[in-house]
């Protein structure tokens, strides 16, 4: 599938009117301080999504297609593993040298005429961008996909300052019309079917007739958006990779809206998370090969756009100014932990969500987070606080389908386990946001009791004896059993345990 439209950074329209959509939950936090309590419930929103038969069928079909297409791009497991090892090594090297590479990137960009800005928080980044736009008197911004701008809730922020911030990626445009957020980082409108889009276009685009023909719908959007590109005062994009040595911003896309946004308006602003830097341009090649294949099963995207400067002397087009905003928003804190640092290897391909049995069933909105799916489950709690997102980090069976396909081998299940640890323990030396704030006396007691029994074989033996003898009388109303029996019968212990039989009969003799 080629839905990655912009495989780059992938970003979405804002949640500027979150309450307008039943699918979006009001949760606008820009600068997030680790919270201790939460009204965000993955369990509740997932349960709601599971009840939507159409949604589940849409996601299942889409994810099946994506998995098959990815698999077709990696016919040789040996080659795939070599490529993953290379991609992982490139990203790991970048992270090991992160501060110096960022400084080198800044120097190279400056040499090329790209102005570099640093923002610790989303608020700072928003203010910076607003300042750049206001300095040029810009009131019309067109955007290519950028997940970082979604993190910043940039659209809502700019709209509140009277600046039109228009998503131009088709999927992003579709969901922006409905004031929705993306349900997938690569294919933001994957939860919608063409009937819904047809209705929406006929109601919201001037002079548009109702049509379910995909080519006609696409042509409608083209007509509207080309006028917007033509008139835009500024363009904004994400960054897939930023090259330190050459000062190059790399953008991966299929639609061309990224090129339009970065080359047509007189001002181009790029935003990136600080982890996106790589040392050399040639290092980008294996990452690019992994990105398009992992994301949508494409060997190559339509466009790979390498920007190393604004309009040069003698050039007849291209932006007069290019700015790069480097955003931290919790990343430097994640970086400070040797194990959790692997989170920052991510190249935002979305393969983890495409292969996730949970994501496939509940879709992206249920996560109530900018980044859904497995990568979101490890990234969101680290940004927003592990206690606040306690039920998110437990919303995984730890099946490992994500890390199995991750092009940069992020050990997502191991990191989930670590974050479960962090949520319930305030370990000295830990830098994790909200550490220990998910601890409850009940869970604490449960695990202590568990250990107390299981480290004492006599107690264990008694418990097992008790369970086998009273196996038919375990009360179904016990909270855990109640949850279990929502879909299943009560588990029935054997009449006599293995150990009891071995003790009474001795080992079998063959």
């Amino acid at each position, binding site marked *: 599938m080629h839905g990655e439209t912009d495989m780059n950074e992938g970003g979405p329209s804002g949640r500027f009117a979150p309450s307008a959509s039943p699918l979006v939950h009001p949760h606008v936090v820009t600068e997030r301080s680790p919270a201790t309590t939460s009204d965000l419930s993955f369990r509740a929103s997932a349960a709601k999504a599971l009840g939507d038969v159409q949604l589940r069928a849409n996601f299942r079909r889409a994810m099946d297609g994506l998995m098959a297409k990815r698999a077709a791009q990696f016919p040789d497991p040996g080659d795939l593993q070599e490529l993953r090892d290379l991609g992982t090594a490139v990203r790991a090297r970048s992270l090991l040298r992160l501060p110096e590479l960022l400084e080198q990137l800044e120097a190279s960009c400056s040499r090329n005429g790209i102005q570099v800005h640093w923002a610790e928080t989303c608020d700072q980044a928003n203010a910076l961008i607003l300042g750049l736009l206001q300095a040029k008197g810009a009131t019309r911004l067109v955007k290519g996909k950028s997940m970082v701008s979604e993190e910043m809730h940039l659209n809502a922020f700019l709209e509140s300052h009277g600046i039109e911030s228009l998503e131009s990626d088709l999927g992003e445009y579709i969901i922006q019309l409905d004031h929705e957020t993306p349900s997938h980082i690569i294919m933001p409108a994957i939860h919608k079917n063409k009937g819904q889009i047809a209705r929406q276009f006929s109601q919201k685009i001037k002079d548009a007739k109702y049509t379910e023909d995909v080519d006609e719908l696409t042509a409608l959007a083209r007509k509207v958006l080309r006028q917007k590109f033509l008139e835009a005062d500024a363009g904004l994009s994400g960054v897939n990779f930023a090259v330190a040595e050459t000062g190059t911003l790399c953008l991966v896309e299929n639609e061309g809206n990224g090129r339009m946004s970065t080359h047509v308006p007189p001002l181009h602003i790029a935003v990136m998370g600080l982890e996106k830097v790589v040392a050399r341009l040639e290092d980008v090649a*294996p990452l690019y090969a992994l990105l398009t294949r992992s994301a949508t099963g494409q060997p190559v995207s339509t466009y790979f756009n390498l920007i190393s400067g604004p309009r040069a002397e003698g050039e007849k087009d291209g932006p007069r100014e290019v700015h790069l905003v480097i955003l931290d928003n919790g990343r430097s804190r994640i970086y400070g932990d040797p194990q959790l640092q692997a989170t920052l290897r991510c190249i935002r391909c979305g393969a983890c969500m495409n292969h996730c049995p949970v994501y496939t069933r509940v879709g992206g909105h249920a996560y109530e987070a900018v980044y859904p799916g497995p990568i979101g489950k490890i990234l969101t709690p680290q940004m927003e606080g592990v206690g606040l997102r306690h039920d998110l980090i437990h919303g995984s069976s730890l099946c490992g389908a994500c890390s199995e396909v991750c092009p940069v081998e992020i050990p997502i299940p191991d990191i989930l386990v670590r974050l479960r640890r962090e949520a319930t323990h305030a370990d000295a030396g830990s830098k994790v946001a909200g550490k220990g704030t998910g601890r409850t006396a009940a869970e604490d007691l449960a695990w202590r009791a568990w250990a107390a029994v299981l480290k004492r074989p006599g107690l264990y033996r008694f418990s097992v004896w008790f369970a086998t003898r009273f196996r038919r009388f375990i009360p179904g109303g016990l909270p855990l059993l109640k949850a279990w029996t929502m879909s299943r019968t009560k588990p029935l212990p054997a009449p006599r345990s293995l150990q009891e039989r071995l003790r009474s009969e001795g080992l079998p003799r063959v």
Partner: protein
Amino acid sequence: MSDARPDSRSAILARLRAAGSGGPLPDLDTAVLERRRWTPAERVRRLRQGMEAIHAEFLEARPDDWPAVIRAFCEREGLRTLLFGPTTEAGRRLAEAMAGSATTLRPYDAPVETFKAELFQSVDAGFTTTLGGVAETGGLLLAPGPREPRLLSLVPPLHLALLRASTIHDTLWSAIRALGWGQAAPQNALMISGPSKTADIEQTLAYGVHGPKRLVVALVDDLPGSPK
């Protein structure tokens, strides 16, 4: 305002440095990229296969007749205007060949601001040269600049690109190395593999969503041993 918040900058860098994530850098084993090598003829075949799979079209030409091939194509398609960069060698040859054609050659020789609306609304096609291609996946390599501006390959609904078979590289990786982009990256460099496309509506492919609806490659067979 190259750095509005030096305090943010130093605070971020200080935090990253404090993490002190040392350790040896893992080796980069590029064997998997290096062994993707093909003969020149195979490179042409692979490039075509990769690009045709995503709706790029090909015109076959020889070093001496490609301008005529392009003229015939333009007239066959009824193109009214073809935008081009007049100062390249290829541009000059094209201009000669197009003299008297029903298709008007329009030079892109002034800042875009002077004809932006016209560019968006009434140019049928844009012609560019390429620096080469990528065999592994299919793809054209371009470095837009003063002679061939950036929007030439983006805004007109049809992009006509000239590719010489001898300039096709094995992989993107080997191309970046061979072209020296890692030492001196062009102001803008591109790999283009097909017409603009999207699958954002129910994963149904649609072409020409923002950029060109068609990508037509005039492929010049300049490999040694090919019939002249």
